């Protein structure tokens, strides 16, 4: 029978396995070695592997990203952790101008095997600067791989794959996903780049949920059953390289696509998926598309506004129902205890 772990435990186990396997793997970032150990994802590793391999850093996101790159040029495989994705904005020059480009601009003579873990925050007043999902920036730039696992199983398999990948990988977590539980084999398996997963079958509409929104999409699917709509839910898992084929195959069947991103829509992952599916199916199949994501504003901390800022299972279900039935149906499912959003309680 399956072993059940939390997402946090899965990330920690993947790190432990890779550090145990390969002495070139090192782990650093602000507070990775403190008592809270990044929600527990790095718990015990400093003791087990020592301060040379696991260490907290100064608040120097720009330089520490450069340090990770430099160490990787010398053959190490650094995992660099950031407790908030928002802080990556201080590391953009090293990520975009160097990590993504080093192999190419040096004519293939080097590689940059780094993993950059960062977490998207939500709720409990995280507000403007602790809530951003900026993964589309990294999808935009050639030379970076981007992964946003949503289950403990994928969290472990993708992290192992990321560490073993010889290229820079942006590993995107979500604070609320950390609380997810699920089956996780003990073996050192990988969930390799470029393959999406159909997480629930359906014929009426294809529902693509990115990062935390994958959970809301799966809940939305259950709400949609109430109105007889069968949604196929897809988790892209890897955003770059993106498995467009799996999405296209589904939409070819359903003829309808709704992409729900845990980020803004303009020039976001949802725009990319809608655009590429449209390009691929034009002429072959008429398709209806819809994008959902953050409201086009800064994230407000106050609950009444925050609730309106994010899509959730009910608003997704309503929009998908309208998409499938071809117009506003005025249906919004009633709250259901069994489909309640886990609320991550502050303080964080």
């Amino acid at each position, binding site marked *: 029978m399956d072993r059940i772990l939390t997402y946090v435990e899965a990330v920690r186990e993947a790190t432990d396995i890779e550090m145990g396997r390969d002495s070139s793997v090192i782990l650093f970032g602000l507070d990775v070695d*403190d008592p809270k150990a990044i929600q527990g994802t790095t718990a015990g590793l400093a003791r087990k592997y020592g301060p040379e391999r696991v260490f907290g850093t100064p*608040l120097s996101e*720009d330089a520490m990203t450069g340090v990770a790159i430099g160490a990787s040029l010398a053959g190490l495989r650094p995992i660099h952790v950031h407790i908030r994705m928002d802080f990556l904005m201080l590391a953009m020059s090293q990520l975009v101008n160097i990590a993504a480009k080093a192999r190419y601009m040096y004519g293939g003579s080097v590689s940059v095997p780094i993993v950059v873990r960062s977490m998207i925050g939500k709720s409990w*007043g995280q507000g403007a600067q602790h809530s951003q999902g900026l993964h589309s920036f990294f999808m935009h730039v050639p030379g970076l791989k981007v992964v946003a696992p949503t289950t403990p199983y994928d969290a472990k398999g993708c992290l192992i794959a990321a560490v073993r990948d010889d290229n820079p990988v942006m590993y995107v977590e979500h604070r609320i996903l950390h609380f997810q539980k699920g089956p996780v084999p003990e073996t050192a398996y990988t969930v390799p780049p470029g393959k999406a997963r159909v997480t629930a079958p359906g014929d009426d509409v294809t529902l693509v949920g990115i990062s935390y929104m994958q959970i809301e999409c799966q809940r939305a699917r259950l709400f949609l059953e109430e109105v007889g709509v069968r949604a196929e839910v897809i988790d892209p898992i890897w955003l770059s390289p993106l498995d467009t084929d799996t999405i296209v195959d589904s939409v070819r069947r359903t003829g309808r696509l709704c992409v729900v991103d845990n980020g803004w829509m303009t020039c976001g992952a949802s725009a990319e998926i809608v655009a590429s599916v449209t390009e691929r199916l034009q002429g072959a199949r008429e398709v209806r598309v819809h994008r959902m994501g953050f409201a086009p504003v800064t994230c407000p901390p106050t609950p009444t506004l925050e609730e309106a800022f994010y899509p959730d299972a009910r608003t997704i279900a309503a929009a998908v129902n309208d998409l499938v039935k071809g117009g506003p149906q005025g249906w919004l499912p009633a709250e259901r205890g069994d489909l309640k959003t886990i609320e991550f309680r502050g303080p964080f």
Partner: protein
Amino acid sequence: MSGTNPSPSKIAESLRPAPASDLHARLYTSLYRIRRVEEEVARVYPTDKIKSPVHLSIGQEAVAVGVCEALRPDDVVFGTYRSHAMYLAKGGDLNRMIAELYGKVTGCAKGKGGSMHLIDAAHGVMGASAVVGTTIPHAAGYAYALKYRRSDSIVVSFFGDGAADEGVFHESLNFAVLKRLPLIFVCENNSYAIMTHQRSRQGHADICGLARAHGLPAERIDDNDVLRLHERVGAATGALRAGTPGPFFFECMTYRWKEHVGPNEDYHLGYRSRDEAAPWMENDQVGRLAALLEPERRRRIQETVESEIRAAFAFAEESRFPDRSELFTDVFKDA
């Protein structure tokens, strides 16, 4: 409701102090007020009425109070997510602060900022940011504008010892020196960034030394002494207004009594000990200033403050949350 409640200094004045102890009364009023507000925040926090993380300054109030009591109302301060003390010491509106923590539309940011983004432009509190170090260059830019406008107002940049790890700290100091800005840098050094000690983050761990290397006159104040802080910063503001070119730098050693974020203590976590905290608690400036005041007067200050705090929490409780329509306002300013 901005300005409905008096600033610390106003309260003290309203109590007609004997001139000699006037300063003590002002400092005590501000210290006591901040301490009590944060104690109330901590008390209410478990009820989940406060919809925001809270980074309490309990134990560190002396820095904000000593500095801000040396400023004029038209001077300007920039701070961090840990800015309750700075906001109140500079005269930020208490009602609107508590309402902001409650996520109410009457908050200083209409519930769109939360406790990490306190602002009260009318009282010179120009903002606080949750990304470490990001307001330091704002203070420099603001000071540049003041100098350009030939104003004699002064800007103070508050930040922690962790912010000194960031490159932007150095870039900002260099620009401030290059342009000789009317700016005072105040590093609130509580030895920790979350749970990581300064010595684990800084190879040399001498923030004043870094400031001097950029060409700033820099002074470390080791003992959290509010009177000394006030006197030394007062000397700097005096010099700046008298035309001495800035900037100035103060490294103020202090200590956070509570956990990094949240209402509780965290000595059980083991990254620091109660013994380390003990001398700071013994040297508590709230108690120290209280002792300098004649009891009757102290009592009247306390009463005034307590009723102001009761009113502020009531105000927050009674205020409403923003309507959903508020979600889409304030993205852009329309011409």
